[in-house]
């Protein structure tokens, strides 16, 4: 059977398996096995993709399949992948597998929890393999809606408020997106030689008229940008992340926010390059603000999850910034940053969840000296922090350097100043990361109760080791991943540079 179909089918079957499971043990085992298979499949997909390329297949998209859906509207269900989506699928598979592992001890309504979690993942996988805006949008919704339940039921703190806020903002974004997608659909007929179509590949061959692009580019960019924490539409992120249960935070920051970046690149920029070049500067300003503002915002936070949420605003802002540079190196950096941020933020949220379970607080003012009592988690937290501040040898550095070098290829003052502003985030990031590492892990132990807490157990260790392995692997040998992605960027960059 087709590998891409299996990528959606396996989560669906996992959901079925969970729904007929009786004991907690069965539920979590079926979730873990299902997502384990998914991880194997994603790995297989990576190698199948490489093999296909090695055999000289130079198509933009591989494993393309298409089925008629609504014939009268020319809607198909078409799927296919390139280097960008394959790498993001691999990221998703890693994050969901580790997410299931960290949720090993979810006792409250665990059946419903795992079902929602895996339905959400199905949406993400579907989103990344879709070549059709219609099915892409459906999968997008499928990923967003379970989020409401997951935060509202299994969350902490003001969870109803956070769940409502997050869902409403993302729903607002999807309304805008739907408008943009329909606009593209209707106007694909207006382009010379065009038919009304939702198919991304078909639309990319057309030249959508400029006046149409001017209306729909901002809609689509903002629509996806909300999910990618574009300033000023990022405020769902701190509240949502801080209330969400651990696995959901991991998935949300690790994967869902990447759907925003992916959508901006694949849909907004690729299909409407004219407007992207013309109006990009507005969003360059906004994303530069995101990067610096998020980092400054993180400096004074007291809740570990808030720190990370603001840090995500900063790092995902860098993704959108890099995409807007419409340069191949920085676009490569954008994809690398998505993967790198996905991994390290999943690690961060997993660790925060584990620490919270032990200390019952996330407020760093009450913590200190944890390195002594939980060295494994402490060291892992430090590694995540170092990856986040862009230490060479870990994945963040590679991504950031691609973005900076790429952005600096523009020789005009505007782009250069924006790049320098964005570069300055490496210092601010160092400040907040070292601050939290110092207050949380180092120094004397502040609370005597902390002397009794125990270090990580097996499933926690497994989560942490998998994620660190991936982060360090990319950081030490970045060339293969960078090559893997960069070839698939050619059609997008070509289209963007043709307009200039």
């Amino acid at each position, binding site marked *: 059977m087709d590998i891409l179909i299996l990528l959606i089918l396996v989560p669906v079957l996992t959901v079925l398996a969970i729904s007929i499971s009786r004991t907690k043990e069965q539920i979590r085992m079926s979730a873990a096995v299902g997502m384990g298979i998914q991880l194997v499949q994603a790995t297989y997909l990576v190698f199948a993709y490489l093999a296909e390329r090695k055999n000289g297949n130079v198509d933009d998209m591989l494993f393309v399949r298409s089925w008629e859906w609504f014939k009268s509207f020319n809607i198909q269900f078409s799927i296919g992948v390139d280097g960008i989506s394959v790498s993001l699928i691999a990221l998703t598979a890693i994050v969901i597998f580790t997410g299931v592992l960290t949720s090993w001890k979810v006792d409250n309504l665990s059946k419903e929890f795992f079902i929602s979690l895996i339905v959400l993942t199905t949406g993400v996988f579907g989103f990344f393999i879709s070549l059709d805006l219609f099915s892409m949008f459906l999968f997008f919704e499928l990923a967003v809606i379970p989020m409401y339940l997951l935060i509202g039921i299994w969350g902490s703190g003001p969870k109803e408020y956070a769940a409502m806020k997050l869902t409403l903002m993302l729903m607002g974004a999807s309304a805008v997106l739907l408008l943009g997608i329909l606009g593209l659909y209707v106007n694909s007929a207006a382009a010379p030689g065009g038919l009304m179509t939702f198919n991304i590949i078909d639309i990319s061959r057309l030249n959508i008229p400029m006046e149409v692009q001017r209306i729909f580019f901002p809609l689509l960019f903002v629509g996806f940008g909300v999910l990618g924490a574009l300033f000023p539409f990022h*405020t769902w992120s701190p509240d949502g992340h801080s209330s969400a249960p651990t696995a959901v935070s991991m998935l949300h920051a690790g994967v869902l926010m990447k759907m925003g970046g992916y959508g901006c690149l694949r849909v907004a920029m690729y299909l409407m390059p004219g407007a992207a070049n013309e109006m990009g500067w507005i969003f360059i300003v906004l994303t530069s603000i995101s990067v610096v503002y998020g980092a400054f915002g993180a*400096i004074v936070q007291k809740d570990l999850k808030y720190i990370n949420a603001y840090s995500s605003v900063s790092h995902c802002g860098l993704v959108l910034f890099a995409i807007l540079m419409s340069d191949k190196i920085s676009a490569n950096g954008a994809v690398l940053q998505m993967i790198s941020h996905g991994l390290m933020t999943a690690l961060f949220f997993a660790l925060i969840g584990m620490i919270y379970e032990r200390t019952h607080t996330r407020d760093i003012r009450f913590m200190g000296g944890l390195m002594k009592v939980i060295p494994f988690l402490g060291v892992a937290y430090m590694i995540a922090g170092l990856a986040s501040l862009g230490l*060479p040898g870990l994945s963040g550095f590679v991504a950031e350097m691609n973005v900076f*070098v790429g952005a600096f290829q523009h020789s005009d003052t505007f782009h250069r100043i924006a790049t320098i502003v964005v*570069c300055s985030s490496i210092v601010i990031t160092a400040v907040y990361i070292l601050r939290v590492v110092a207050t949380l892990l180092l120094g004397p132990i502040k609370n005597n109760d902390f002397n009794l807490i125990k270090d990580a157990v097996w499933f926690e260790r497994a989560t942490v080791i998998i994620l660190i392995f991936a982060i360090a692997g990319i950081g030490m040998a970045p060339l293969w991943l960078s090559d893997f992605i960069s070839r698939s960027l050619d059609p997008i960059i070509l289209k963007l540079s043709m307009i200039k």
Partner: protein
Amino acid sequence: MENFGYIVIVPFILLISFILIGLAGGRFKPSLSGIAGTFSVFVTTVISYITAFSYFSGAGLVNGVYQKIIPYNTEWLRFTDKLVINMGILLDPISVMMLVVISTVSLMVHIYSLGYMKGDSGYSRYFSFLSLFTFSMIGLVISTNIFETYIFWELVGVSSYLLIGHYYQKPSAVAASKKAFVVTRFADLGFLIGILILSNITGTFDYSILTDPNGPAIAQGSTIAFMGLSVMTWALILVFMGCAGKSAMFPLHIWLPDAMEGPTPVSALIHAATMVVAGVYLVARLFPLYALSAPAALHFIGYVGAFTSLFAAIIACTQTDIKRVLAFSTISQIGLMMLALGVSDYGGEKGLGYMSSMFHLFNHAMFKALLFLCAGSVIHAVHSNEMNGMGGLRKFMPVTHITFLVACLAIAGIPPFSGFFSKDEILVAAFEKDFVLFIVSMIIAGLTAFYMFRLYFSIFWNKNNEYKDSPHESPSSMAVPLMFLAFASLITGFIPFSKLVTADGAGFETHIHWGIAVPAVVIALAGILTAMALYKKESGLPQRITASLGSLYRLIYKKFYIDEIYLFITKKIIFNGISAPVAWFDRKVVDNTMNGIAAVTNFISVKIKSFQSGQLQQYAYVMVSGMIIIILFALYLWNK
């Protein structure tokens, strides 16, 4: 030419040692970690010595010029066809010299630490990080391109962070490590932007193209101007900002004195001999670029170095913590090296400043590491850093006493100790190029002799303190490195550096310029005698002098309040002035706007709830009018 492929072993063995000790260190006997780390550095040292010997004895020589040899180079990350980050090994006189310096000092520090760190709970962690540091530092000096340097530059930064914070339960150590990292990170931002601009002008990261005196980088360098200086000059000044951060040049020096919170052997290795001279090394690495296409930047470096050197020497005269005196002395000596680079030209004997800077770097590494290790030995014995609480230790610690004296004589520039030779060359170079800098370096020479002997007499002579448990000489694992380094400080001055390490690879003849050397030695002796008069015997004289200086003394003692200024900038401006308002703005303005939109939506929905009244007539009315509107709209579209 010989192929130096075997050097690849060096980074690998150190990296493996780091990972192995880091992962497995806790599970075995701690002493095993120490032995493993020391062994890997021992192998490194042997290979470095073999390399240096074969390189300088002719394998690197072609037509009387030392060549750049690249035995190994592999692609690590590719941006474009020309902008490639390679991981490679570059051998030329300065990198080979640095190999010797790093491996020697690192080996001595490893051996010393076997004794010094005994019983420490973080013994394995300590040796694992030492391996990481040595790996990164060697990677830094053998880099083939500027981006590779940047990568290792960051790695030495983080190893320094980890080692300063070795006693991580001590708040002051945590704060110091944080400060060191953030200050150097800030400087590295300049370095990074400098690299970006530089690569944009020249289209390459590669040193062999960047620093080729006849190459395209230097030929096309200074065409575009920005604010009166060429873009190349700006780029190189930004790169120097990174150097200033690592090498603790004013005003980025503030992290180094605090970094003394780390274990003393770490201070000897990282904050005296190797990492802090990375900035000097990088300027030397890019020297053709500085000298030929941005002389203004080089001039700037010379003056920054001179100012820092003088500034730090003055502060060193007032400090009482022995490690802090040494820290300021380090800053001062590195400033002197920068000064020497600043007064140098490229090519032949005009490159005297360059050669003297490297010479001084080499000698300084040996005697400064020795000073720190002696200080560690003293601290080990009396359990205090404060020199006011010491005195008369020469009777208890003869080895430490003699080796410390040797180091002091070396740094003060008394012949025949090593410092004399390199300092003489620096003075000659300054004298020929810039008289102001020459005078400054003479003053520094006097101050150096004074504060070093102030330290020496206060520790080993002065009053005979009553110690709780009488201090004793350190174990042999600590004494042997001291003796080795003292021996090195005695002989390294006689190495014919001008024949080996020069700006363009071609050797030249130098001899001692007695016209300058004699006054310099006289000034140094004057400094020593003053210190002897004040501190050899216990007297109230020093107190009276400081009292008469009053607020000026306080100003210097408080290090010119630079730390307070920084504290103001970080606490008041960054935290309270930017971050807190940003966080407030985000919660109160941006977020409330979003909530406001939701509230408005809610409000409207409550208002229009009345539409769903259940009255059939009203529904019919709305439906019909809606249909009419749709039909009209459709007709309009139809006609269009």
